[in-house]
């Protein structure tokens, strides 16, 4: 009897000690786990806000990110940049790097949302109004770019440049499209180009503009041409989230369009097609300035001829 009671007591004591040691082990495991969670923070120093990357103010603005910084930041200042959702979801800059564009080709966009899926990049050539500038741009584009059907390159490697086209005028365009030839610039600009769709696309781009294009959107948007490049079809989006490439050629001399189109095609081949590396450079700025200066030569020559003529007339006869 006594022995059985002693046995029961021992069993109770044993189970109590076991549960106590289990509890202790559990707490030590929790402690280890907590330490492990905190360890990276102590190793890396101050913690960076989640979902941000450390890049310069300029890069953050180009990619359409948001950041908090002291007043008057310089473009080279490093900030914690919160990139917009599409980039984070798709893997950030690595996603931009995964794309490879080998060539550009043009196609006609006769209605919003009719873009063919699968292209590497989608670009839109936008003229707000019919003008001589639009014709000059089309001239350069048709001279140096193939129609999309005659390129023979896989869609994924192509940057397609869509030209908004009036759906009701498609019958006039069909014979040209079948051969893959470019239409006459004058006819396309005056009759076939859809300026209404172009203006609508411009409004969509400017509905929620990123920092880098805010100044473009604040202008009257009546001169152009404008080039807009996006990673997916954008004609049906009510608001277009960054990253994108917007090229405003409003202040560029007409005769420089060829060089700008060429630079733009080189730009879309870059890993980060939005960085403006090939476009916003001194070489192209100088070209536009030289061509504008050359425009002054005719009036100067005329004025000099007038001065010489006047001087000759006022000379007293010998």
């Amino acid at each position, binding site marked *: 009897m006594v022995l059985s009671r002693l046995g029961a007591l021992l069993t109770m004591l044993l189970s109590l000690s076991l549960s106590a040691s289990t509890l202790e082990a559990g707490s030590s495991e929790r402690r280890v786990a907590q330490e492990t969670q905190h360890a990276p923070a102590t190793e890396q120093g101050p913690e960076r806000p989640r979902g941000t990357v450390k890049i310069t103010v300029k890069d953050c603005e180009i990619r359409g990110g948001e950041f908090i910084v002291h007043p008057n930041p310089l473009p080279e200042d490093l900030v914690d940049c919160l990139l917009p959702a599409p980039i984070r979801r798709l893997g950030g800059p690595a996603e931009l790097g995964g794309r490879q564009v080998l060539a550009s080709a043009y196609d006609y966009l006769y209605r919003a949302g009719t873009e063919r899926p699968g292209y590497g990049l989608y670009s839109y050539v936008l003229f707000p109004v019919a003008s001589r500038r639009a014709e000059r741009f089309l001239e350069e584009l048709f001279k140096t770019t193939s129609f999309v059907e005659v390129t023979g390159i896989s869609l994924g490697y192509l940057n397609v440049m869509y030209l908004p086209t009036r759906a009701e005028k498609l019958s006039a365009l069909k014979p040209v499209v079948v051969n893959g030839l470019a239409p006459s610039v004058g006819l396309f600009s005056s009759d076939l180009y859809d300026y209404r769709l172009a203006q609508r696309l411009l409004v969509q781009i400017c509905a929620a503009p990123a920092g880098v294009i805010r100044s473009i959107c604040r202008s009257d948007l009546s001169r152009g041409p404008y080039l807009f490049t996006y990673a997916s079809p954008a004609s049906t989006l009510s608001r277009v989230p960054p990253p994108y490439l917007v090229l405003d050629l409003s202040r560029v001399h007409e005769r420089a369009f060829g060089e700008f189109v060429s630079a733009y095609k080189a730009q879309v081949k870059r890993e980060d097609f939005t960085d403006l590396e090939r476009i916003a450079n001194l070489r192209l700025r100088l070209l536009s300035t030289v061509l504008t*200066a*050359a425009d002054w*030569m*005719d009036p100067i020559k005329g004025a000099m001829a007038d001065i010489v003529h006047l001087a000759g007339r006022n000379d007293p006869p010998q």
Partner: protein
Amino acid sequence: MTILVSGFIVAVALGSLFSWAYPRVEIDLRLASLFALGGLAIVLAIRGVWRTIHRTKA
């Protein structure tokens, strides 16, 4: 005469440099006139600097 010939040579050099840098832009009469004016300005500027240096040495 020397200034005019030198100006013409510099203008040709400027035009060649322009064609190399911007192969898609055709050089028309207006651009050529600008290069001629630029060439003349460069030659006159070099001549001015040259004379100033010689005057200082003397």
